[in-house]
């Protein structure tokens, strides 16, 4: 119970500005008892990254599936000065608009956004895919590995990462180029800084089970997987050989099937 704050004057006094939010969906055929699954695209990405493969697959397996873009991303409304709190607000707004209590799935930096949203919305369960929880150490190692992409981010420019960091070599070059061309919008400079220096997410409400999924060969999130999983009292589910963008990689089906199997387990 430690650390829980009942008096939230800042949140009461300064609600984030309303914004249009892009939400894509895929509906399972037949009556679905399964909870809705909401995929949250990471920094610099839009809901479409899930619409490529995972959304359909999730619906095929009987879960109502949704994917959203944070403000300033994809087809969501612009938000040049968005804060992490505004992104968290986006996630809780969409989650609460779904017909049933939802499972939240966050990718990359949006895994952190989802982890924060868990303190403001009692998710049925949560999955953190290739989580980037940021912090100063992670920022330095990103600088070391991808200086050309990272340095501009220090000045509030969008973080640009080489394709090689995001996808494995198994992805055909044409697909990789097509994905790169679809980027629209990105995290605000402010949010990028907050990713470096933020307080640890508050305790989740409603005690949801949390699964961490990633690839040990993901050069962005791979090294931190065990540490993130440990926070939630588990071990990460690993898919060696894949890049950071598990949902776009050539073997996209393995992780999503593993996630859905986990959700199907009784008690989840």
């Amino acid at each position: 119970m430690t650390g829980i704050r009942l008096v939230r004057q800042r949140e009461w006094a300064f609600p984030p500005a309303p914004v249009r939010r892009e939400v894509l969906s895929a509906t399972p055929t037949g009556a679905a008892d399964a909870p809705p699954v909401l995929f949250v695209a990471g920094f610099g990405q839009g809901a479409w990254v899930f619409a490529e493969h995972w959304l359909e697959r999730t619906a095929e397996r009987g879960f109502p599936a949704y994917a959203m873009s944070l403000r300033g991303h994809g087809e969501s409304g612009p938000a040049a000065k968005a804060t992490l709190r505004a992104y968290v607000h986006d996630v809780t707004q969409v989650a609460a608009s779904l017909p049933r209590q939802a499972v939240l799935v966050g990718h990359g930096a949006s895994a952190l956004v989802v982890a924060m949203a868990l303190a403001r919305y009692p998710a049925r369960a949560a999955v953190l895919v290739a989580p980037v929880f940021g912090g100063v150490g992670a920022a330095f190692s990103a600088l070391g590995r991808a200086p050309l992409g990272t340095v501009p981010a220090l000045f509030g420019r969008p973080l640009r990462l080489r394709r090689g960091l995001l996808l494995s070599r198994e992805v055909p070059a044409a697909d990789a180029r097509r994905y790169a061309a679809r980027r629209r919008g990105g995290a605000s400079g402010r949010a990028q800084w907050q990713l470096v220096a933020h307080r640890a997410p508050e305790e989740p409400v409603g005690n949801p089970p949390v699964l961490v999924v990633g690839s040990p060969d993901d050069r962005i999130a791979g090294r931190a997987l065990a540490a993130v999983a440990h926070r939630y009292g588990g071990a990460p589910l690993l898919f060696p050989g894949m890049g950071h963008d598990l949902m776009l990689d050539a073997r996209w089906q393995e992780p999503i099937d593993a996630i859905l199997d986990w959700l199907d387990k009784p008690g989840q």
Partner: protein
Amino acid sequence: MTDECAAPAARAPHDSREVYDRGEAVCVIGAGGSGLNAIKNLREAGFSVDCYERETGVGGAWNWRHDRSPVYASTHLVTSKPLTQFPDFPMPDDWPDYPHHSQLLTYLERYADHFGLREHIWFGTEVARVEPVGDGRRWDVTIRGSRGGEPRTLRYAAVVVAAGHNWSPRWPSIPGLEEFRGQVLHASAYSDAAQLRGRRVLVVGGGDTGCDIAVEAAQQAARCWHSTRRGYWYLPRYALGRPTDQAGEALRWLRLPLWLRRWLFARLLAVTVGDVTRLGLPRPDHKLYDRRPVTGGQLVDHLGQGSVTAVREVARFTGDGVEFTDGATAEPDLVVLATGYRPVFEFTDPELLGIDSDGCPRLRLQLFSRTHPTLAVAGLVQPAGGLFPIVHWQTVTIARWLRLWGSDPQRAAALWARRRRGSERPYTRNRRAASGGRRLDVDHVVYLRALQRSLEELGAAR
């Protein structure tokens, strides 16, 4: 201590009837906002819950279809969204700052569906009796269909009362009211502005409801008088660039001391509305925030346009008129009494909730029975902000507390004994302000801090 009396004593009052034991399940009375929230948070903590609701739908006061709903066609929230919603289920961004009552019903219905609460609710079922059994920690709850039917009794590990307190009209005793030949309505029976059209209306009561109805009368009635007992602080809906309650929170977040916040808002009113006595209103007889301020910006506008006349407290009714305490008179043909509601708990013995002559329960933390640790009342507070953020943490506290009775009764008993000794003070900023019939008033920050301490204590006890 349990065994010697449990079985025989429990059966005694119902020996003719069967008592169905629901084991560790918790009984929730009412499926308004507070009851729905109690079901959700108790289920989240792992309890089985049976909720009984006399009506056929959820939403309680906000469901205008209910006979006892106090809302009228034009009711809008007086508290803005962030201070009204449950802290873990936000209202949609595309709703207005101050939603309409029908939106609040939609919100509560969606809450019920989102968390799958309806399957735990028995609609059209009224709780007729709640009695402690055994050592006073378990409960026999007698229910019956709202439209009649055989009563049944079930036994529960705990009872959470969420029956609301805004449905039983408080009738003032004013001399001559019986002789008055015009029509007299309590605000609870007011539902639509058509009731006011072309009438000569006197609205009695300076609360939010009284102001709302006076504003409607200003637009519909032939004449409108608004009678208040004292001077109030009428706040506009917006201040400092945001909804007024959010502005108040911003100042508290900045840690401005109370005197400075008072000064700021008083200045704000002084440079906009100015001296209210020019409008015929009495000067406020208390400092701002000592009582709940009234959302009355629109009323002030109508006073300024002469479509509402401010009058003093009613001294007496005569056959066809009214006399006020300052000697003025008026001849209304319709009197609307917006004099509030009183809490009523027909199904328990008054001692269980510490109800005494004034009809107001005395509870520990304004939440738990002082004598029976597994009996709680959710939502029996009157905050200046919204009710639901407070109810949420109340029911979280109830759930934690009941968990502790289940997992570590000794520890729970020790905590309980400690609590019983501690003395209760009002959860308002100004302790004197909470006296005199306003005992349900709480300052949300003071009260939430008290709940937080209580939760931390329970957390440490785990």
